[in-house]
């Protein structure tokens, strides 16, 4: 029961944060919304049985990315500047798209038949060790490639952002 309540809290966090991020005209509020949403998501991950990913989510996303966005915002616009007036047509179009998309996906999800496994795999298979093992054996090419991408992104970001 409590568990259910916790999960719904997380879901609520995700959606409220997402709504804040989507509809807020103030960038700072949007970033805060993003953070809330990500936090809720991390909770859901935890709930889905993956503490490691949840931790990573908090560390990298909330700790890294969100903060980086805040920095970028502070470097680019003064926080006191009022954002431009909302464009009703644009917003309407966006909402219409979202509604159509959500309707379609929801319809699909409700109609879909998933071949669910009877019970979750063993605790061992969910361990960080197993994850690390898989990452360095089966997925090592992806892992290396990702490292390379990150490296390049960093170099690229520096190159782009430095003063000409």
């Amino acid at each position: 029961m409590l568990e259910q309540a916790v999960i719904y809290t997380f879901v609520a966090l995700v959606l409220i944060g997402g709504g804040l991020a989507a509809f807020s005209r103030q960038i700072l509020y949007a970033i805060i919304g993003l953070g809330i949403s990500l936090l809720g998501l991390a909770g859901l991950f935890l709930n889905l049985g993956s503490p490691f990913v949840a931790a990573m989510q908090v560390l990298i996303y909330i700790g890294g990315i969100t903060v980086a966005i805040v920095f970028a915002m502070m470097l680019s616009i003064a926080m006191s500047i009022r954002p431009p007036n909302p464009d009703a047509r644009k917003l309407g179009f966006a909402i219409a798209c979202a509604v159509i998309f959500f309707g379609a996906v929801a319809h699909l999800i409700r109609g879909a038949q998933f071949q669910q496994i009877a019970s979750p795999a063993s605790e061992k298979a969910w361990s960080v060790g197993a994850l690390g093992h898989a990452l360095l054996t089966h997925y090592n090419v992806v892992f290396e490639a990702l490292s390379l991408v990150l490296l390049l992104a960093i170099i690229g970001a520096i190159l782009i952002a430095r003063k000409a």
Partner: protein
Amino acid sequence: MTLEAYLLVGAALFSLGLIGALSHRNLIALLIGIELMMNAASLNLMAFNRFVVTDPTTGQIFVLIIIGLAAAEVAIFLSIILRIYRAYHDIDAEKLTKLSG
């Protein structure tokens, strides 16, 4: 919570991200929308990982990769935003029309 419920939450999150990405003119707000959509995808992957897949490492690694990529993407994106700001003193997506004919 069932798989369907997680998927619906993911879809909702994605839709919110979509609204964010489509309705804002501020580049940072766009980025936030995109991040939300990526996270919705992550949620889906995690949910499938939990309810469908026999080897639970797969989905987690996918999500980790997404997170890594998101980091890279954000780094680039933010540096571009800074660059644009320096060039235009604005980060309004609709004012960046130099390439349009």
